[in-house]
C-alpha cells in the first residue's frame, strides 16, 4: 500500500517536471520518472492478486520506454545540431 502512494507521488512529480522543465533533456528525464510511476502503479495493483500478466506487460513497457527514450534523445540532439536550441520555447529572439 505504501508503494501505491509512492507510485502516485512519482506520477505527479514526473508530470510536474514534464510540464514545467523547459530543457528538452530534462523533459525526457521527467517523462521517464512519470513512466516509472505508472509501471509501479501497475505492479502494485498486480501484486495484490499475485497476477503474472501485468508483470509481463510492465517488462514489455520498460523495453518500449527505453526505445522511445533513445529515439527522443536522438531527436533532441539532432535539433541541437541543426538549430542550436535546447528547448522548444516560442522565442522571437532566436529567429
Amino acid at each position, binding site marked *: 500500500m505504501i*508503494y*501505491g502512494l509512492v507510485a502516485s507521488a512519482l506520477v505527479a512529480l514526473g508530470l510536474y517536471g514534464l510540464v514545467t522543465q523547459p530543457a528538452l533533456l530534462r523533459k525526457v528525464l521527467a517523462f*521517464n520518472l512519470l513512466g516509472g510511476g505508472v509501471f509501479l502503479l501497475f*505492479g502494485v495493483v498486480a501484486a495484490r492478486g499475485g497476477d503474472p*500478466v501485468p508483470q509481463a506487460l510492465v517488462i*514489455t513497457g520498460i523495453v518500449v520506454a527505453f*526505445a522511445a527514450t*533513445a529515439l527522443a534523445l536522438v531527436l533532441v540532439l*539532432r535539433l541541437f545540431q541543426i538549430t542550436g536550441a535546447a528547448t522548444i*520555447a516560442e522565442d522571437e529572439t532566436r529567429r
Partner: protein
Amino acid sequence: MTLLLDLILGLAVVGVAVWTLAVRENFPAVIGFVAYGLLLALVWVRLGAVDVALTEAALGAGATGVILLFAVVRLRGGRAEIDAATPGPRQRLAAGILCGVVGLALAVAVLSLPDPAPSQAAAVARHLPELGVANPITGVLMAYRGLDTLLEAVVLVFAVLAIWSMAPDRRWGAVPGPVFPVQSNGPLSLLARLLPPIGIVVGIYIAWVGADAPGGKFQGGTILAAMGILAWVAGLWRLPPVASRGLRWAVVAGPLAFIGVGLLGFVFADGFLSYPPAIAKPLILLIEAAMTLSVAAALVLMVAGPPEGRRA
C-alpha cells in the same frame, strides 16, 4: 521491520525523484535518475516481481542512464535560453496544483481498490505445463500475450531504423556512433577486458534460465549489450557499419523467428502464434535465442545512435 524498510525505500525513491527534477545541472540529474531506477528495482523486488526488477535495473536505470549521459555530454550551454523559457512562479504553482490533483486521485484509487483482488494467476498456472515453461512471466510473454511481445520486438527494430534515419545523407552507411580511441591502460581498459567473458556467460545464462526462473531474453540481451558497449567505449571493439548485412540480420533475426513460428501456427496449430503442444518448448527456446541476439544488437545500436563516422 519490513514496514520500516518499505517506508524508508518509498521515501528514498520519492526523495531521489524530487532531487532529479530540482537540481540545476544536467549531469547530477542523470546520476539521480540512475539512482532512482536502481531504487525502483529494489521496490520491484519488494513487490515480488524479480523479472521486472531485473529489467528495470538493466534497462530503466543502466541503459537509459548511458544514453542520457551521452546526450548530456553533447548538449552544451543553452543556460540563458533555458532560464528565459522557465515558466514563472504562478504557472508553476498552477501546474503543481493540477499535478497534485492527479497524484491525489491516483492515491485515492489505490487506497480504494476492490477486495479480494481480481487475478488471472490461476488461469495462467493452469496452462503452463502444456508450454513446458515453469516461469509464469515467460509463459505470459511468449504465449498468452505473445502478440504484445512480438509487437514490442518489432518496435525495437523500428526504433533502430528511426534513429539511423536521423543521420545526414553523407553519413549513411557509416559506422554508428562516435569512434572511441583504444584505451591501453586505466580502469576502463581493465574492466573492458575482464568483464565481457564473465558477462557474456551471465547474459546467456539469464536468457536461458528465463524459462524456469526470473530472467529472459530482454534481461539477458541487455547484459550482452552492456558487455558490447563496454568493449566499444574502451575502443576494443569497433561496431560494424550500418550498411553491414550481418548487423542488419542480427537486428531482425528475433522478430523474423517470432513471425515465422507465428505463421507456422496457422498450419500446425490453432492459428497465429499458437504453438503445437508437442514442440512448444523447443519453439519458444528458438524464439528466445533469436530474440536475445536481436535485443542485444538493437540496444547497442540505440545507445550508439545514428551513423557519425565517414562512409566505409
